[in-house]
């Protein structure tokens, strides 16, 4: 496994960098937030991303995608994260596209993949039910009733849950809370009767919802993958999501660091540039080292995902842990090194701090993944 980007991956990265800088500078995100936009992403931008083929990157060519791989989509998300570009690309282009491509029946693939690739259909993955990520703790019941299943319960903190057309829902078909067995994944139209979406107002001003399921009826054809083994399937989908998210978080951290370095080279106090103070230089150098480790970890995880490595789980937890710790450090230091303007709403650096803390929680915090890494490694 070579830890370098291929030419195609580098091309996707460069394209995304230009797109983010030209079409979605941070002012774009700011205006969505300031205008209390109901879905907090822009239809026009999503159309442009679709024209570039991004929602179809994980989808096979026969269904209208380009099959460029996890590394491809992750580096795009990393570049978009540098300008905090909001879009359905993560929830739809990664989670939705990966789930259905890898675990969907041929009918599900026919139904959904071309629409995902063309940007018509957006998706959301509904796993969590409390304030901490823990798929094994799924309680939401899917009760078998003849050929149908009836779902009752509440999903929390669903990314793009306020707008997605199709929900991928983890529910319990047998067993008890705390067990990874007895779980099943369902594909459910978000407009089905009994579904109530409650938009969440989070610190990072992104699109999230809690979703109530009140006697929602689905048929057996809606099962994604196999009945009862949805826990395993969900873990696989989550690992891909964690890797793509780690790439996003790396992009956030790189941008916050670059902005801070620029500031250290411009701001004068005591008659000199503050970047000449050793107290700040050494902290900047330490952040540089952590960023380098994060780049390597994320790259190794993306490559492992594309190569189907048996190290996937361990590298997924490694990359989410390291990306979380690095972004935590850099987002704090970025605000501190900006001084007073760092804590003003007018200045963009605070957005990175807010985004950091939310992203750190998504699909498991660094603590969750350190524990998982230790379990996998036999510590």
């Amino acid at each position: 496994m070579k830890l370098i980007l291929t030419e195609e991956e580098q091309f996707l990265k460069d394209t995304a960098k230009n797109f983010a800088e030209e079409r979605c500078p941070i002012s774009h995100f700011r205006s969505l937030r300031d205008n209390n936009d109901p879905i907090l992403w822009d239809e026009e931008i999503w159309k442009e991303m679709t024209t570039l083929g991004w929602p179809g990157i994980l989808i096979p060519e026969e269904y209208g995608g380009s099959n460029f791989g996890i590394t491809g989509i992750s580096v795009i998300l990393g570049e978009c994260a540098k300008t905090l570009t909001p879009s359905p690309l993560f929830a739809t282009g990664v989670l939705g596209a990966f789930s259905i491509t890898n675990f969907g029946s041929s009918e599900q693939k026919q139904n959904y993949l071309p629409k995902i690739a063309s940007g018509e259909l957006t998706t959301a993955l509904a796993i969590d039910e409390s304030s901490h990520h823990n798929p094994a703790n799924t309680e939401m019941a899917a009760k078998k009733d003849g050929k149908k299943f009836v779902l009752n319960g509440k999903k929390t903190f669903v990314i793009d849950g306020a707008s997605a057309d199709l929900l991928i829902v983890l529910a319990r078909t047998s067993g008890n809370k705390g067990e990874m067995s007895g779980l099943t994944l369902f594909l459910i139209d978000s407009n089905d009767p009994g579904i109530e979406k409650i938009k969440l107002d989070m610190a990072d001003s992104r699109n999230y919802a809690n979703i109530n399921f009140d006697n929602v009826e689905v048929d057996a054809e809606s099962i994604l993958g196999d009945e009862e083994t949805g826990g395993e399937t969900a873990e696989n989908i989550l690992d891909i999501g964690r890797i793509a998210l780690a790439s996003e978080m790396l992009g956030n951290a790189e941008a916050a660091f670059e902005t801070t370095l620029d500031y250290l080279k411009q701001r004068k106090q005591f008659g000199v540039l503050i970047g000449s103070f050793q107290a700040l230089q050494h902290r900047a150098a330490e952040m540089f080292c952590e960023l380098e480790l994060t780049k390597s970890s994320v790259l190794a995880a993306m490559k492992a995902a594309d190569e189907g490595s048996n190290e996937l789980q361990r590298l997924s937890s490694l990359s989410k842990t390291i990306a979380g710790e690095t972004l935590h450090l850099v987002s704090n230091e970025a605000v501190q090194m900006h001084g007073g303007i760092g804590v003003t709403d007018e200045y963009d650096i605070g957005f990175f701090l807010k985004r950091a803390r939310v992203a750190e929680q998504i699909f498991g915090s660094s603590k969750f993944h350190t524990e998982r890494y230790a379990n996998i490694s036999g510590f």
Partner: protein
Amino acid sequence: MSNLDKFRDETKKWLNENCPPSMRSGADPSIPIDEVWGGRNAEYKNPESKLWLDRMGEKGWTMPTVPKEYGGGGLNKEEVKILNEEMFLIGAKQPLLSFGIWMLAPVLLEYGNEAQKKEHIPKILKGEIRWCQGYSEPGSGSDLASLSTKAEDAGDHFLVNGQKVWTSYADKADWIFALVRTGAKEPKHDGISFVLIDMATKGVSTKPITLISGKSPFCETFFDNVEVPKENLIGELNAGWTIAKKLLQHERAFISNFGLAGAAAAGGGSGRDIVSIAKKHLGEENGKIKNSFYRTEIASHKIKEHAFGLTLKRAGDEGGKASATASMFKLYGTEHNKKRHELMVAASGIDGVAWDGDEFDQDDKNLTRAWLRTKGNSIEGGTSEVQLNVISKRVLNLPSQ
């Protein structure tokens, strides 16, 4: 069959025929293990150590990338990779530990003249001459360029007077590569030259320094009217600082590997693996380290170690843009190694600070000494603080005061 496949077959065959049994994994543990540094006065407890060195030295495979005309293996990158893989497969020991290979040979290849390369490199690769490094002085540590060991022009030779310190194994070395002042004190970087000195020359003497670990890997080295032939000057007169910096990069790259190589070696059951140490001293429950506080700390540490290993691999795959990152690797590798030893000592409890006597396991006593030795890792070859300065200025381009 491609050339590389052919090379692999030949290499496999050669190693099979030439690597002695005690130099491979699975060797009889009763056979003593030598730390082979070569040199005029080398002694071997196991004759196969010498045999293995001679055979590898003859092939030039102690430094396989060096051109054949200087006694190297003349191998390209792919061939070196194959050689390493084949050596790894049979668990072949590195035949030679050498400052000559790690530091001097690369700069001789770059800055030495033809006669100097032909004279010195083959002897380094065969392990005939053991080298040491004369850089630091009592008054010049982090501020190395302020060094004052003087080399005066005395016609056909330099007359060298002064003192070096922290010279690794100077008491066992045959030659020393040293920085000496041949020009003015100011500007300090412009009056330094890089010279090679035979330690057998009249006026050279050494004195070991005992460290907090109880061991003495370092010496003070004294020069008292030492006559050094002018042909031993490497590069231009007063242009030694450029060479010195280049050599430091090689040294830093080498030291940064300590942390990782140590961790990798520990995997082989030497008893220096942090997880097994923790399980031994703190207990094991369902295959896990029993104490959850230590377990968390160790897991976080192992995650960083994994990420650092991947970063070294990435640097290799990117094709060695080493100069910018050598400081980062040196800084991170040594700080990580110190942390690893602190964790091992803590997880060992009172056994982790055992010094001597029969009441303690040899592994525990060795760990105490090893832990103390790591405190020098972040000082030698440029302190961590110096590395942070280098990263700030050269990589991040932060302004000077």
